[in-house]
């Protein structure tokens, strides 16, 4: 199942904080019609209650998401931030991470999109894949990495 689209891979998002990052990146999903106009607010609200920052081995990421009712077409928006932004860690809101990369998930039905979820998770747990995402310096190389690993 396709989850990565060239229009949804972005570099250099200059965000002031986690909410700003979510709003800026979510706009890409909204503008291209992947999500409803309720999506960004829903993701921002959910992030405050249930944070999605993840400290991986050599990189901190965040995977903001929300319920499927806000989604039109499943996709993963991959966004590299211009500078790290503080997110709270998933499962442990007291721990803060400096996220450099956002995997913003537009998931409609987790059972139907399980393959995509598995692939994203595989990236998180695969040191070499994480290194590839980290090293990607421009949109094209980020897109190639996302395409290859998530599809």
């Amino acid at each position, binding site marked *: 199942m396709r989850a990565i689209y060239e229009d949804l891979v972005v570099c250099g998002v200059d965000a002031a904080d986690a909410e700003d990052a979510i709003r800026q990146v979510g706009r890409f999903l909204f503008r291209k019609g992947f999500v409803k106009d309720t999506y960004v607010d829903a993701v921002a609200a959910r992030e405050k209650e249930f944070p999605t920052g993840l400290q991986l081995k050599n990189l901190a990421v965040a995977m903001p*998401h929300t319920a499927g009712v806000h989604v039109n077409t499943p996709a993963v928006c991959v966004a590299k931030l211009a500078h790290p932004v503080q997110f709270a860690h998933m499962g442990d809101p007291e721990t803060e991470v400096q996220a450099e990369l956002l995997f913003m998930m537009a998931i409609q039905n987790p059972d139907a999109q399980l393959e995509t979820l598995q692939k994203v998770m595989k990236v998180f747990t695969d040191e070499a894949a994480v290194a590839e995402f980290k090293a990607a310096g421009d949109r094209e190389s980020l897109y190639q990495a996302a395409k290859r690993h998530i599809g």
Partner: protein
Amino acid sequence: MAKHVKILCVCGSGTVSSAMVANKLKEKLADYGYAVEATECSPNSAETALASGGFSLMACVSPVYQEFGVPKVNAVGMLTGLSEDQVLQDCLKILEKE
């Protein structure tokens, strides 16, 4: 014959991250002879989800502060890969006691 066990996977929205963890647990625990039946829910619906009974443990990626008499395992390490084995061992310890 695989041993059938029920695991409740808890995440913020009861969908995305819990589905990731559920899948990983099914995969990993199958190697130890467990057939995992996973149910996914949000912390707010944990009580309702547990009402059907028979759950061996709760694998949580969002903090669940309430006690329901079912052991909890912090499963965030499954997502980051940093403590995948630890999460697995925590689960096995609980399952083997049954």
